[in-house]
């Protein structure tokens, strides 16, 4: 309900309309969805995961485990939005989740009635018979009742962006410690980024209102912010959460830009990828719930959260609030509620005495304080109606029933150590405060061996204003100093505190609670994990904290145990009779709160998913209606269908035309690596199996490149440019990989060799003019001399063709007379256009990658990736001629000498022709008699390439067959697609122009 007192964040003159489950409701500008729901008495907001119990708000911030709703519709639908982190805007539509048919009446609540049959890990013990029932019966039911929100139905049309920044100091958290850290670092001159996850500065201080430097916390925050804003070296961001810390000072922050103002343009969210010299985590602390029976009934909230709602939003949960605590801090809630005109019938304090300043203030207000007391049980179903009071040190005998409609609980505080821990920062158990805090002696270490995360303020275990603010200031100064900024930042601000008495750790309430109560004490509200579940885990031997977590699902919900982990851990420790620090915590993993996958993706979606690499004639291919195939990040024309031709028809036409007239291939994607330097020849002799150092200037040589293990990894034509320069062609997919391979050897092994490698693939357009009329065409265009004598096969020359400066290579991957012509990339399109235009008279047609494959297969030329697969050595492909015997060494030489590599039983390259002329299936295996020791059918070979040959008008294939070259003419059986076998004859792999005359004319 909305109080008459004003909340500090809401503007009552600016009403905002929204809906919840279709019901039209009103809040005010400045509300969160959480505060607006509470203002409308909508306490019930969801259902729990396992038992489908009614769930209300427990917290006011990122730690909220219960209040998850679905927002928006269609391409704006978002499941599992945490209402405490959703700022209200006009037209916001929220729906509750995980119930059927409605939030108020959920049949799934039957699980709660059956809860005694569904303890921790029950599913490991049942649903086993009969075997088929798991997939078909049990699992579908479990899946349907699990999950939370509905899956979105469409993609997301919002935009998301990434920022990359480098800063001296990243400060996470805009409470007073974080502000003080940013202030000190900023004054010292460091480049500072300060991020705060909520929409306001000041953290708890502006709610609890201590004084700082003699003024109110709010005034100090305002003044500090004004100073930070004026510093050019400091950047501050609200709605920006420090999400994760990674090695080497890398951090992520997630900024929500327009979630609160959907009508505003621009990206929805921004992911900051930050390199920070030091990361100061001023992430605050989270209040712990207390474990008493039925502590999950809507209306039971954290004490500080209740204060937040009253002070920030002028909203209360109930008229009569009972406070239950083990510390002094929760008394502030009693005072805040009292000040707001609400009834506080009692403060139930588990400690044997409560004599601090705050309890005395509360007593002075006329509020009853019951010490050594606890809550035996909460009354109410969908809302609290009262509490049963008992002695804390007893078994739960009820001494008194207090009617109330709200319970505020506080079990003490736990520092938020997530970011400290993400990258290996260690924790230490602080006995007096009963919490884990960062161990300053064991921070996450950066590349310099120093800790690069500094935890400050309450996140460092300093719960009081004075020490928190001083801690932040000193850390900011220290962090700036590391980056070389030593200007004096002045004195640390002075905070003022009310003294508090120590808390008494309370892990279950009452201390001697019997099973009946323990089985109703919730630890993890969302996942329905109770004290009895953790105790059962311990009883069954799940003693490691990781086992207990996984067995019970404690802390595995969408809040990742922010409220439940420490309480659960304490229960486990007690059950095992071990000290809490010995049991330890589970691992804190990024992100701090769930991070939208779209934000991680940023702009890299759809067309921008990966760069599309285009050759200079890509647009021409596109305009011709080419069918493209992805090859690496390139798109290459697969074929150029004309009219209503199928792709297959087009390939046939392109092959025939290239054999009969002249074809034109865009070979620009082939890798081109310049290898240059005094040691370049020596280097290439190591890289290739062939000798490259003795290649004469002006000549070309086909080369093979092997991995260290001897396997063929790439091939291509190498041309000697001048005395110390070679141009190495690689496969399309190989350019980047081979460059990296060369650099690897040059940088790691032969660092003293004088060799330079440059990838010039994209600097040249390269086209193959192929076919019997190729020379006629080029001569018709006019330019450099290209006769057999001027430019023989396997040579290259520079000159001009049609006025273009070109480099022409007499090489052939088709068996035809062929010129590969390179021009500067910028002239590629014009040169291509000229070839196409002039080629018309000679019947020139472009051909795509599939025709290229067929042409080479007809000639028995191997293709990397088809004939090779990382297990094939050149010798398998009868390429011994390309392996130098003169060289002492080359990469792969030793590998090729190993016993398995020289095994005479290795499968070797042959040609294959089906007896019936059909085309063998891609990837077909040749079967042999019998089965191996594991019952698998024996094989004796496989198909590596298979095509319909338009030239020979039948299916042709290449394959690797055991003893293949010695079995010419033999017929063996290959597998067929969909089963069965087909007979194929082993033949010479060169199907066309066996003597190689055509390419040499």
């Amino acid at each position, binding site marked *: 309900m909305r109080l008459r007192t004003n909340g500090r964040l809401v503007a009552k003159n600016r009403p905002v309309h929204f809906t919840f489950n279709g019901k039209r409701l009103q809040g005010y500008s400045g509300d969160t969805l959480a505060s607006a729901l509470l203002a409308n008495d909508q306490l019930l907001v969801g259902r729990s995961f396992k038992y489908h119990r009614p769930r209300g708000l427990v917290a006011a911030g990122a730690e909220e485990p219960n209040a998850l709703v679905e927002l928006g519709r269609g391409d704006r639908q978002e499941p599992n939005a945490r209402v405490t982190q959703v700022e209200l805007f006009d037209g916001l539509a929220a729906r509750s989740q995980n119930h059927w048919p409605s939030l108020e009446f959920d049949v799934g609540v039957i699980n709660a009635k059956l809860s005694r049959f569904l*303890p921790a890990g029950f599913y*490991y013990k049942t649903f086993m018979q009969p075997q088929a029932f798991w997939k078909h019966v049990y699992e579908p039911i479990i899946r349907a009742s699990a999950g939370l929100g*509905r899956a979105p139905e469409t993609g997301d049309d919002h935009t998301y962006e990434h920022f990359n920044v480098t800063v001296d100091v990243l400060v996470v958290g805009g409470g007073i410690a974080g502000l003080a850290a940013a202030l000190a670092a900023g004054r010292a001159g460091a480049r500072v980024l300060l991020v705060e996850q909520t929409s306001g500065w000041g953290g708890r201080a502006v709610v609890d209102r201590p004084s700082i430097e003699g003024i109110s916390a709010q005034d100090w925050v305002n003044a500090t912010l004004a100073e930070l804003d004026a510093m050019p070296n400091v950047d501050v961001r609200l709605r920006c959460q420090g999400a994760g810390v990674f090695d080497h000072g890398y951090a992520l922050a997630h900024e929500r830009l327009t979630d609160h103002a959907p009508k505003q343009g621009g990206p929805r969210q921004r992911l900051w990828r930050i390199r920070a010299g030091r990361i100061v985590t001023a992430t605050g602390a989270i209040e712990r719930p207390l474990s008493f029976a039925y502590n999950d009934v809507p209306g039971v909230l954290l004490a500080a959260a209740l204060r937040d709602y009253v002070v920030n939003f002028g909203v209360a949960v109930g008229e009569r609030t009972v406070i239950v605590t083990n510390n002094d801090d929760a008394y502030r809630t009693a005072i805040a509620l009292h000040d707001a005109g609400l009834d506080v019938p009692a403060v139930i304090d588990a400690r044997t005495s409560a004599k601090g300043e705050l309890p005395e203030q509360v007593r002075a207000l006329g509020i009853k304080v019951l010490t050594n007391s606890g809550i035996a049980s909460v009354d109410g179903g969908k809302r609290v109606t009262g509490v049963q009071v008992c002695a804390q040190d007893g078994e739960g005998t009820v001494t008194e029933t207090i009617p109330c409609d709200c319970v505020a609980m506080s079990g003490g505080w736990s520092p938020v150590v997530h970011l400290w821990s993400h990258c290996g920062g260690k924790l230490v158990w602080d006995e007096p405060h009963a919490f884990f805090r960062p161990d300053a002696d064991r921070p996450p270490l950066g590349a310099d061996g120093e800790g690069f995360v500094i935890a400050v303020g309450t996140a460092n275990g300093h719960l009081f204003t004075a020490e928190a603010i001083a801690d932040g200031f000193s850390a900011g100064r220290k962090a700036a100093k590391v980056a070389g900024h030593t200007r004096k930042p002045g004195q640390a601000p002075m905070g003022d505190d009310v003294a508090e008495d120590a808390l008494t750790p309370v892990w279950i309430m009452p201390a001697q609670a019997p099973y009946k109560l323990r089985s109703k004490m919730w630890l993890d509200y969302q996942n329905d994990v109770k004290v009895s579940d953790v105790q059962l885990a311990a009883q069954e031997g799940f003693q490691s904290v990781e086992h207990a977590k*996984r067995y019970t699902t404690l802390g595995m919900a969408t809040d990742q145990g922010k409220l439940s982990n420490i309480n659960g851990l304490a229960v486990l420790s007690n059950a095992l009779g071990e000290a809490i620090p010995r049991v330890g915590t589970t691992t804190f993993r990024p992100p701090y709160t*769930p991070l939208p*996958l779209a934000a991680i993706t940023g702009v890299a979606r759809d067309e921008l998913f990966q760069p599309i690499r285009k050759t200079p004639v890509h647009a021409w291919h596109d305009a011709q209606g080419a069918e493209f195939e992805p090859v690496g990040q390139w798109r290459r024309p697969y074929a150029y269908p004309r009219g209503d031709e199928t792709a297959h028809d087009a390939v046939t036409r392109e092959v025939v035309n290239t054999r009969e007239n002249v074809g034109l291939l865009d070979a620009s994607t082939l890798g081109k690596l310049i290898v240059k330097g005094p040691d370049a020849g020596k280097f290439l002799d190591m890289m290739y199996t062939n000798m490259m150092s003795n290649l004469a200037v002006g000549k070309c040589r086909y080369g093979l490149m092997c991995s260290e293990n001897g396997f063929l990894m790439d091939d291509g034509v190498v041309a000697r440019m001048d005395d110390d320069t070679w141009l190495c062609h690689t496969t399309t997919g190989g350019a980047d990989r081979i460059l990296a391979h060369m650099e690897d050897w040059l940088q790691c092994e032969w660092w003293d060799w004088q060799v330079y490698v440059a990838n010039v693939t994209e600097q040249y357009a390269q086209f193959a003019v192929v076919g019997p009329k190729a020379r006629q065409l080029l001569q018709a265009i006019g330019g450099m001399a290209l006769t057999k004598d001027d430019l023989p096969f396997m040579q290259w020359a520079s000159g001009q063709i049609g006025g273009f400066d070109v480099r022409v290579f007499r090489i052939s991957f088709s068996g035809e007379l062929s010129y590969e012509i390179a021009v500067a990339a910028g002239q590629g399109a014009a040169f291509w256009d000229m070839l196409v235009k002039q080629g018309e008279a000679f019947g020139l047609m472009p051909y795509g990658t599939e025709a290229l494959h067929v042409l080479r297969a007809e000639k028995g030329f191997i293709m990397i990736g088809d004939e090779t697969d990382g*297990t094939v050595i050149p010798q398998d492909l009868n390429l011994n001629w390309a392996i130098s015997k003169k060289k002492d060494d080359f990469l792969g030489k030793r590998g090729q000498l*190993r016993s398995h590599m020289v095994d005479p039983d290795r499968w070797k390259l042959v040609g294959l022709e089906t007896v019936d002329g059909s085309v063998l299936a891609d990837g077909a*295996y040749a079967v042999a008699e019998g089965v191996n020791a594991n019952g698998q059918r024996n094989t004796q070979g496989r198909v590596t390439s298979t095509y319909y040959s338009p030239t020979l008008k039948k299916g042709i294939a290449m394959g690797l067959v055991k003893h293949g070259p010695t079995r010419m003419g033999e017929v063996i059986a290959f597998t067929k697609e969909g089963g069965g076998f087909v007979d194929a004859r082993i033949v010479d792999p060169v199907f066309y122009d066996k003597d190689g005359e055509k390419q040499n004319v």
Partner: protein
Amino acid sequence: MKRYSAFAIAREAFRQHSGWTRAWGQAEPKPRYDVIIVGAGGHGLATAYYLGKNFGITNVAVLEKGWLGGGNTGRNTTIIRSNYLQDPSAAIYEKARSLYEGLSQDLNYNVMFSPRGVMMLAQTQHEIRGYQRTVHANNLQGVTTEWISPARVKELCPIMNIDGPRYPVLGALWQARGGTARHDAVAWGYARACADMGMDIIQQCEVTGVTTEAGKVTGVNTTRGDIKCGKLGMVVAGHASVLAQKAGFQLPIESVALQALVSEPIKPCMDVVVMANTVHGYMSQSDKGEMVIGGGTDGYNNYTQRGSFHHIEETVRALVETFPIVGRLKMLRQWGGIVDVTGDRSPILSKTPVEGIFVNCGWGTGGFKAIPGSGWAMAELMAKGASPLTEEFSMNRFRHGKFIDESVAAGVAH
């Protein structure tokens, strides 16, 4: 052992579950065991289980330096498939897959094996040919797989965008009997069954040394004292080479961090497991509703169990591209594990230069799916000195060059 069943739960429900006993005992090390297995992950526990079940060897200790199942067994994305290309791989993974089918009943522990089907998308012509080859190979290996059309892909996984602007889906390799299982339950189920046979599972017990005599193993030094043994099985994944060094030999293993992540849970929207190797991502939906997403390995060797965020970015991009609806979901948690990778990306199940020491490692990024088959084969190797399933996985293959390279067709992700 008290059998688990719906009746047992009902009985316990009426006595406050006080009758459940420890799933596995809390054992103190004995002075000597016939067999010591180092490493209480899935592979180590399965090895112990089949030593007992198939060979009657039950004087066995399984030593674990941390908590059982706490390594890669508890960190993986739970995918089970056997659609491997090479014969030795297909044999051991298919053995594993078929054992998974009856594992819940065999162990009396519900490991939730769910044969929901695994598809590997082809998004280039090269992948089409590779996966078609795998189908031919699988059919001869007794592994049921098929090549399916894009339309069938869409039918099996309606949330997939098969017409993406960048890499349209051209078809897929489909193994209908592949699926997922609950990873922790596999470790716990084997541990409980081992303990039931009288084996000792000793956690918080780190092996600090290996003792030998005349080239033969005699025992181990541990943080809980020296323990003698007849045979020693090393099954410690990412730390295999560290342990091997203590026994005086080297392994061709590199250890790198492999990452994974889960989304927040949502209602069921995806029934199958999808792997997309061109764009580098794979995903399935857990019974809890989380989208379980596998990432890539880091480019440098380390033992941090963390990893670099840019790999997460790469994986997430791939999945948003393939399944546009997931852009609206949120990453709940990311984590890393240390995978032990061999030169050919295939495992080592082998005798070693030290008599009596056997090693099972190198499962790299794909070990979970192999657990029952690996344990079965390793047990046979340790009990009999040879197993047809491990024959080709000997560490000597690196000497002979007889690699088992799967990256050739099955893509990068295992």
